[in-house]
Structures are given as C-alpha cells and as structure tokens.
C-alpha cells in the first residue's frame, strides 16, 4: 500500500479507515464510504471513462462528490463544473479542456455537441467492483472568473489540492465536516478533501436549501468543523438556527475576515477554535490564522523554505508554494506564476504594527460574498448599449456581502439627454446586464455621470483597494 499522502483519492481516503462509519450527507440522499467498496455511482461504467477528459456537470453536490472519488486516478482530466457556469460558456470549456466525456446526474442528460460519451451519475449506487487505483495523475480543473468574461481554467492535481492537509496536524483528526461553499469551488473542495483524507464525514450544502434548514441538518449530523466565507457566516448569524450547530472549529476564507465577524463568531460559538485562512484557486492554501485577530502576523512574510513562501511586492501578497496550481488551461492562457515561481494574488496588504491587513484587491476586482467580479466584464456589457459612451464599474463596501457592484455611466452627448429618457436607458442597461451576467455581477446602482476621470495614461482611474 502506498503511503497515505500518495495515490489516488480512493486509495488515500481508504487508508484513513473506518469506511462504513463515514458518510457523505446530501440534502436529499446520503452514501457511506463503505457503500462505495462494492458500489458505483457511475452505473458501473468507470472503465469507459478511463483516460478521458471528463466534464463533471451535476445538479447536486453529492453526485459530484461521488464522481470525483471514483474518477481521480482513472480519468485523465476532471473539470469541476460550478453550479452557476453560464450555458454559453460550456462550448468554450469543452473545447479548451478537450472534453470527451460528460458525467451528469440529470434523469435524461442532454448530449453535448462534440462530446462522444455521456455517463450517468446517481447517489443510488449500482453494484460494481471497480479498480480505482491511480494509473493517471489526474488533472483537476477548477473554474474561476476571468477578466474577459470567459472562465479561467486552473489546473491542479490531488497533490497540490491536498498539500495543506497533510500538514494540518491536529485538525486532520476524524470529524464531521461541512461548508457553506459548493465543493466545486476551491474553498469547498478543500473541506471535502479534509473530510475524506482526514478520516471524517461530511455534510454537503445545497443551493435548494435555506440557511436555517442547512444549519439544522448539519447540527443533526453532529457537525464538528464548519467553513464558509465571512458573508456565509454573517448570513448564518442572522439565522434563528445559528445555535443548531455547536462546532469545535469554525473556518473563514475567500474574503477579508474583519474583526467584527471574528468577534461575533467567538460570541456565538465560544467553544470553537476560530481560524481564518488565506487561499486562492491559483495560489492554493497559504496560511491559517488562529489567534482571533484580523490580519496576519508579519513574521509569516519573507520566511525561507517550507511548503509556502510569501513576500509583498508592489503592495500585494505573492505566494510560492507546493500547493500552487500548475497553470491555466488553454493555448493563449496567461502565465500563472512569475519568473521566480510566485503567484501574484492581487490582494493588497498594509502593515499595521506587527501585522499585515488585507485592504482590497488590485485591478479593482470586486469580491461579492466570496465571488469575484472583474469590472471589465461588466463594463463590456454596459458599453455595448448604443447610448453609452463609457462606464466605470467599482466596488461599494457592504456589511452583508463585503462589497457590492456599482456602475458610473457616461451617456452619448455628455450630460443628461434633454428628452428625459435617462431613467429608461438606465433600466435598459440593467436589463441587458441581468440577461448577460450572473446576479452578483449586475450593478446594484447605476449612476449616470457627465464625466469619468482619466489618468495621464488615458486609462480610467480605478480607485485601487
């Protein structure tokens, strides 16, 4: 048997033992890991997927979880389709990842153009004896929001995704893990892998379930470790079911954890260890802070050696680590790391005393409840309106979601059109945005202004951070 930190996901989670006692609980169904010893979610058709580039496009997180467990080491490439991937991006994803098989949990999966094989995936397992030992170092492809509006496809392997877990020490003891995240996003996938590799179980969230119902269900399964963004946690604290869980460990990631949310969580869950982590899909998990204070100790910076090295350059945090993604997929994809192997996270930090604090994002990237918005992709939609001359999309701080998207728009002819059509044009622009963009990217306020400031370079002035 290979060491516990090597091999495919099935091998590694099996090495943690106690399979019949460990479960994956979805909102509508559950599976124990013991059930997977002689059962398959893929109708026993695993062999057909061997060596293929597989799009895992399921409506449910439990079926996605089962497919990932079965396919690591078997498929050549796994593309984790997030629940909100716009349908018009699917052909781009298929072409870029050279997809040649689809895994779907729909009752009658629609065949995708150019994809020769479709395999169904269900939580009711089919009897099967499958060989899941790793022959392929499977690539795991995670999708993140890109400047151009096309998703960026980030290449990981189990080794880079799980790099932070081996060294997690006492946290890797068996527990019942859960997360408000979808496991097809980096933050959720981390928790899924922690549960599996650390010998634990997991309660999966569901987009169709209210926060209260999810907390009640997680509490009923005795959840011990829970993670989410600060926005997820603010929503949880607004729920009457906040006390239905009594976690030992509360984790925040994906957004700036301010002192207020850390203090509120401490008050609500006095027995829990509370940690905020810094991670990004590209850079991987960099560090956890467990002292209950916002920001992170300055001593973490410029440390040499170890799994993770960090430095500050031009005000932003740079990370070089064994947990960093291998790159972006695609012929014309930009480089993910600089010449020295560092990822520029784009997160701007500021030193106050012996700590660094996150103050925002370079390039004006807006973080709405953990979901990134590139101003340029929203501006492109606004600027396509025939009455718009130019626009600037910017962030507005918000105590519920951290930030909201706001747009300033200059109409043709400078100031306000005399015919009083401004309100109508504003409505039209917003309607176009709602048609073309996911909800969190649609401006919540659209101001018509007479002029937008330009820098000497001729570029729009973006108030950074």
């Amino acid at each position, binding site marked *: 048997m290979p060491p516990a930190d090597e091999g495919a996901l099935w091998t590694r989670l099996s090495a943690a033992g106690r399979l019949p006692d460990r479960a994956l609980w979805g909102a509508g169904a559950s599976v124990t890991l013991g059930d997977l010893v002689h059962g398959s979610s893929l109708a026993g058709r695993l062999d057909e997927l061997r060596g293929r580039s597989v799009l895992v496009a399921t409506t449910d997180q439990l079926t996605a979880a089962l497919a990932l467990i079965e396919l690591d080491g078997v498929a050549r490439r796994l593309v984790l389709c997030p629940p909100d991937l716009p349908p018009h991006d699917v052909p781009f994803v298929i072409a870029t990842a050279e997809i040649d098989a689809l895994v779907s949990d729909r009752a009658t999966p629609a065949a995708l153009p150019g994809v020769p094989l479709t395999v169904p995936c269900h939580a009711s397992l089919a009897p099967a004896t499958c060989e899941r030992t790793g022959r392929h170092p499977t690539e795991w492809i995670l999708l993140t929001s890109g400047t151009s509006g096309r998703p960026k496809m980030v290449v990981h392997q189990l080794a880079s995704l799980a790099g932070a877990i081996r060294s997690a020490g006492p946290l890797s003891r068996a527990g019942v893990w859960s997360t408000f995240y979808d496991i097809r996003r980096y933050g959720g996938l981390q928790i899924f892998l922690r549960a599996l590799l650390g010998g634990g179980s997991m309660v999966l969230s569901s987009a169709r379930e*209210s*926060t*209260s119902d999810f907390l009640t269900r997680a509490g009923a399964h005795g959840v011990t470790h829970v993670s989410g963004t600060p*926005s997820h946690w*603010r*929503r949880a*604290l*607004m*729920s*009457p079911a906040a006390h239905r869980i009594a976690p030992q460990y509360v984790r925040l990631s994906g957004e700036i954890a301010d*002192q*207020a949310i850390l*203090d*509120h969580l401490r008050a609500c869950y006095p027995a829990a260890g509370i940690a905020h982590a810094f991670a990004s899909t590209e850079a991987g998990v960099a560090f956890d802070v467990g002292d209950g204070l916002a920001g992170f100790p300055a001593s973490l910076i410029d440390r040499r050696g170890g799994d993770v090295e960090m430095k500050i350059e031009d005000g932003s945090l740079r990370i070089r680590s064994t947990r960093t993604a291998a790159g972006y997929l695609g012929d014309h994809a930009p480089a993910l790391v600089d010449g020295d192997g560092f990822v520029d996270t784009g997160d701007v930090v500021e030193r106050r005393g012996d700590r660094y604090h996150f103050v925002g994002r370079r390039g004006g990237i807006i973080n*709405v*409840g953990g979901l990134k918005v590139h101003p340029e992709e929203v501006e492109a939609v606004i600027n396509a309106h025939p009455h718009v001359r130019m626009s600037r999309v910017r962030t*507005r*701080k*918000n*105590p*519920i*979601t951290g930030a*909201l998207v706001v747009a300033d728009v200059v109409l043709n002819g400078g100031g306000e059109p005399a015919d009083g059509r401004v309100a109508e044009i504003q409505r039209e622009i917003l309607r176009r945005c709602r048609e073309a963009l996911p*909800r*969190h990217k649609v401006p*919540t*306020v659209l101001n018509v202004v007479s002029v937008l400031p330009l820098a000497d370079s001729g570029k729009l002035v973006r108030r950074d951070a």
Partner: protein
Amino acid sequence: MSVKVEIVTQFEEVAKQQEKTLAPLSEELVLLDSGLDSLCLAIVVARLEDKLGIDPFTADDAEFPVTLGDFIRVYEDATR
C-alpha cells in the same frame, strides 16, 4: 417618512427589482425567510444608507438582526 416605512419600502422595491417573492412583512418575520437572499439584503442596506445616511451594521459592536423587528430596531436606535 419614518425609518420603519422607509425600510418596508426598500424591502418591497428590492424584492420587485430582484424578482423575489416577498413574504408578508411583520416584526416577527425571520429575515432569511423573507424571500430576500444575502445579495438582496445587502442592496437594501446600501439603499437605506443612501436614503437615511447611516449604515448601522458597520459598527464593530453591531448585532446581527434575525427578525425584521430586530432590523428595524437597529436603524431606529442608530437614528435616535
């Protein structure tokens, strides 16, 4: 316009704009059961800041409101 009326107005307007079905509003209504999700509530708070000139939730000691009554009280206390 009283703070309470302004809050109710914003709940109704944001629900309409975001195409959400608003539950019958009462003091006891749990905010997360109102039909508005986090994004909608975030927009309500931003609009109230524009209308009333205050954002009582950015204070470090702000409480997280559970019901609509809690939510209204936070604003009433802040404007007092």
